[in-house]
């Protein structure tokens, strides 16, 4: 029907602001002629019900609410600190390992060659006198 769109627009406007007398009259006239728009205007009450269903301002919260948030923030900061220092720690570890490997390689390069089969031979000379060991037996001294 003619005017339905205007009716919808004015119905919407009426929720945000006061309508002029002319606008209010148009709504009333149109609703008397258009059954569908009259039903919608009646359903506008549903939006008022919606507003009434809002939770109260002084909504009761769990007593631990603030403590929980503070604890969560503290844990998060700790994590952040770890993640902040983690790259530096990894870098330092890699550098330390590299230094150790370098030292190891350097000390090996200067060390005498090590082998399980040395060049040369060892002989036992049985003709030589056995080495003289010092006499540690002090009891003979007293006699």
């Amino acid at each position, binding site marked *: 029907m003619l005017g339905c769109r205007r009716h919808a627009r004015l119905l919407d406007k009426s929720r945000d602001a*006061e309508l002029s007398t002319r606008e209010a009259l148009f709504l009333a006239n149109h609703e008397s002629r258009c059954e569908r728009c009259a039903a919608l205007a009646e*359903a506008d009450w*549903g939006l008022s019900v919606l507003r009434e269903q*809002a939770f109260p301002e002084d909504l009761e*919260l769990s007593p631990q609410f*603030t403590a929980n948030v503070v604890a969560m*923030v503290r844990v998060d900061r700790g994590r952040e600190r770890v993640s902040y220092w983690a790259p530096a720690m990894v870098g330092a570890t890699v550098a330390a390992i590299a230094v150790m490997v370098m030292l190891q390689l350097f000390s090996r390069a200067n060390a005498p060659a090590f082998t399980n089969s040395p060049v040369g031979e060892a002989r036992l000379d049985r003709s030589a006198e056995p080495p003289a060991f010092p006499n540690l037996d002090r009891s003979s001294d007293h006699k």
Partner: protein
Amino acid sequence: MFGTRAVVNPVSDTLSDDLHWLERCRQGDDAAVTYLVNKHRNRLVRTAANILRDRFEAEDVAQDAFLKAFRELHRLRDDRAFASFLYRICVRLCMDRLRSKRAEPAEFDGVESSDGPQIETRIVVEELLETLTPELRMTLVLREMEQLSYEEVAEIMHVPIGTVRSRLHTARERFRHLWLDANKETA
């Protein structure tokens, strides 16, 4: 018919002492965190509860919003906008929850309750809200339940004011139709 609530304005309701506490908060002061949480928690939980229609879930979302806000405090260019920054995070988290929850539309299978018509009405309202898309539902709740101005809704939802107008018009129209259908079926 309804004027915008003058007292509650999360966007411009930032007090200058927030600046001092935010600075302390950046330095890792727990007392500052406590102060800011205590100051904003009721309003934040209420907003989340109105959007999600579940006060326990709302508390979870509000806690997450606080955590995220404190984590991203370095992104806040103007400390005076902390409240709207916080509400924007909360609304975004609510939107994410709504999107993940929205599986199938609710059906009106004749609401029956022994607790009287008030509970019945509440259930109908919640079911109607569930049928709306998260964007429409959010706009409707922020305007009708939270009674925020169009500018505030636009700022919190991070959309142009024209988008708020058109979404609100669509949401209201759809809600009226759904309300009619629900009343026909329960009658």
